[in-house]
């Protein structure tokens, strides 16, 4: 298992390197010089040269990339913002936790709504509750996040005056943005849960469990859910990525100073140093969440665990076990 975890972490490295190269390439292809935006179009050539020298922009792109990665890996330094000239680390250390926390809360809300509703829907297949859940699911994946945010603001802030419109000053301010993302994400989780549970609900082993007189509760928890958990966990991880990805939109609606907001301002100001840092941070967190989901699979499903554990001993044991089972099957045949 430890070997598997190390292997997965090592596999993350090329992906992240790729992401960093990709963001560097974006800079190459983009029209518009960051110096023009930082200094204004009227700046003299010397001033532009000096400014570029300060940020190392006169070097070739390969040297720039090398320097950037060296600093990032050895010191964890993400450089200085082209626009403000301040350290990106200090800037993002304030903004990053906001978006990360919001995405986590939203994913929790989404799972809390989506998974139970999906199970109930699958259990009552074809009945009223199922129709309601399906409607919720399909409406949820069809509604643009920002529109739902506006509707919530109009209802809860303007009409009912219950919750604040914008900003992030108290606990109350967190409710609307995270619930908005949560509800949209819950729809996808619900759909995956429903179809995954439906896949298993008529399986042979469920009939067997019923035949031996197992209670419905235990059948649902230990037999059906356990077997349909993998797609659900994948979908939760995907929804986390989506929540972080859509943070730019939601943060614009609720005027939250998070990562999404930095990303947008970095794009508008051609502030590539900041943009690189934002995209890399988001990519790292998405990779880590996917890794956690993959490790979750191994916890949930012993079959996955045995496939990934490299130890020969274990594999042999597994093979022997399987052979024994097959033997048993053949013997039981008349």
């Amino acid at each position, binding site marked *: 298992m430890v070997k598997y975890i190390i292997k997965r972490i090592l596999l993350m490295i*090329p*992906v*992240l390197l*790729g*992401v960093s190269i*990709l*963001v560097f390439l*974006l800079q190459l*292809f*983009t*029209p518009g010089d960051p110096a023009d935006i930082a200094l204004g179009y009227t700046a003299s050539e010397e001033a532009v040269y000096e400014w570029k020298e300060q940020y190392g922009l006169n070097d070739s792109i390969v040297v720039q990339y090398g320097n950037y990665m060296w600093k990032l890996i050895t010191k964890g330094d993400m450089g200085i913002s082209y626009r403000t000239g301040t350290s990106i680390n200090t800037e993002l250390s304030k903004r990053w936790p906001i978006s990360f926390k919001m995405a986590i809360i939203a994913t929790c809300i989404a799972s809390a709504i989506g998974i139970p509703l999906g199970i109930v829907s699958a259990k009552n297949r074809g009945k009223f509750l199922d129709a309601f859940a399906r409607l919720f699911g*399909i*409406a949820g*994946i*069809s*509604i*643009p*996040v*920002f*529109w739902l945010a*506006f*509707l919530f*603001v*109009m209802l809860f802030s*303007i009409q009912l005056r219950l919750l604040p419109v914008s900003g992030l000053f108290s606990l109350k301010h967190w409710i609307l943005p995270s619930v908005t993302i949560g509800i949209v994400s819950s729809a996808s989780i619900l759909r995956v849960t429903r179809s995954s549970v439906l*896949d298993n609900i*008529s399986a042979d082993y469920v009939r067997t469990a019923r035949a031996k007189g197992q209670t419905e509760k235990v059948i649902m928890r230990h037999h059906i859910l356990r077997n349909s958990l993998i797609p659900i966990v994948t979908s939760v991880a995907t929804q986390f*990525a*989506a929540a*972080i*990805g*859509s943070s*730019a*939109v939601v943060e*614009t609606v609720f005027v939250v100073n998070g990562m999404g907001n930095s*990303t*947008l301002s970095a*794009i*508008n100001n051609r502030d590539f140093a900041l*943009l690189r840092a934002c*995209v890399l941070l*988001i*990519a790292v967190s*998405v*990779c880590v969440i996917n890794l956690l989901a993959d490790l979750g699979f191994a916890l949930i499903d012993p079959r996955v665990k045995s496939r990934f554990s490299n130890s020969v001993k274990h594999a042999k044991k597994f093979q022997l076990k399987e052979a024994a089972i097959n033997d048993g099957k053949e013997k039981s045949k008349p």
Partner: protein
Amino acid sequence: MMGKKKVNHEAEMKHRSMMDEAMRRLVRNKTAMLGLAILIIIILLCSFANVICPEGYDVQNMSARFTPPCKEYILGTDALGRSMLARILYGGRSSLMIGFIAEFISIAIGTVLGLCAAFFGNKCDNIIMRTLDVLYAIPGMLLAICIGALFGGSVRNCIIAVSIAGIPGIARTVRGPALSIMNMEYIEATRSIDASNVRIMFRHILPNISSVLIVSFTMGVGVCILTASSLSFLGLGVQPPSPEWGAMLSGAREYMSKYPYLITIPGLSIATVVLSMNLFGDGLRDALDPKLKY
């Protein structure tokens, strides 16, 4: 008459292809047909926008600003006194066009990449899939924002951004089934009669994953429309004054408390189009996926 019909029906029953059966299931699915009907109506309305609103989307009537929906202006007017109906219909043209073209591009590229990865295996598979892993590590929305914004806002760049964001997902969904088909015996048989690689890929593997492609296309158009409207909402997609639903929403933000219809109408349009697309897509999947027949 009746007798003849019955005979025809029976004849059909005997040799009905899988696609025929799927179509039958689809037509019988009421919600899917409802989605299709709504979608067709919206597409027709948007394509005949110049007939319904011959004056165009940009005529300003400053004396009629913020008119709520009434007889003269069916959907009211916006902050510049422009007819919301005209802007919604013309905006629908760009939203739908971006959605369909972008999804078509990502399906085309994603399918070729996924097929190549599955067919050539080993090195090719590794190169393609690891490259796509890089794109996959960046959430689609963020990727679209980056590409769309850096290339500048226009309909063309919006399409490019949205379609690139969709490619990795499609390639992955294609690769899986393609890999399992690669192990089938008829692929071995076609190899033995010396069929070219391209022929095997596009004549033998592709038709067998067509149901996966059709379903991901219908569901993907909705996602593309949503992503494109989010881009426009952030001011990074279609630029004003050309109308686009997302851009209309962001323009109406300041008047949200006084004139809520400026928010509800464009949002409702996006939601309706995507919902009808998804309803139809769900129906298609149920019809094409024999596993769900129980």
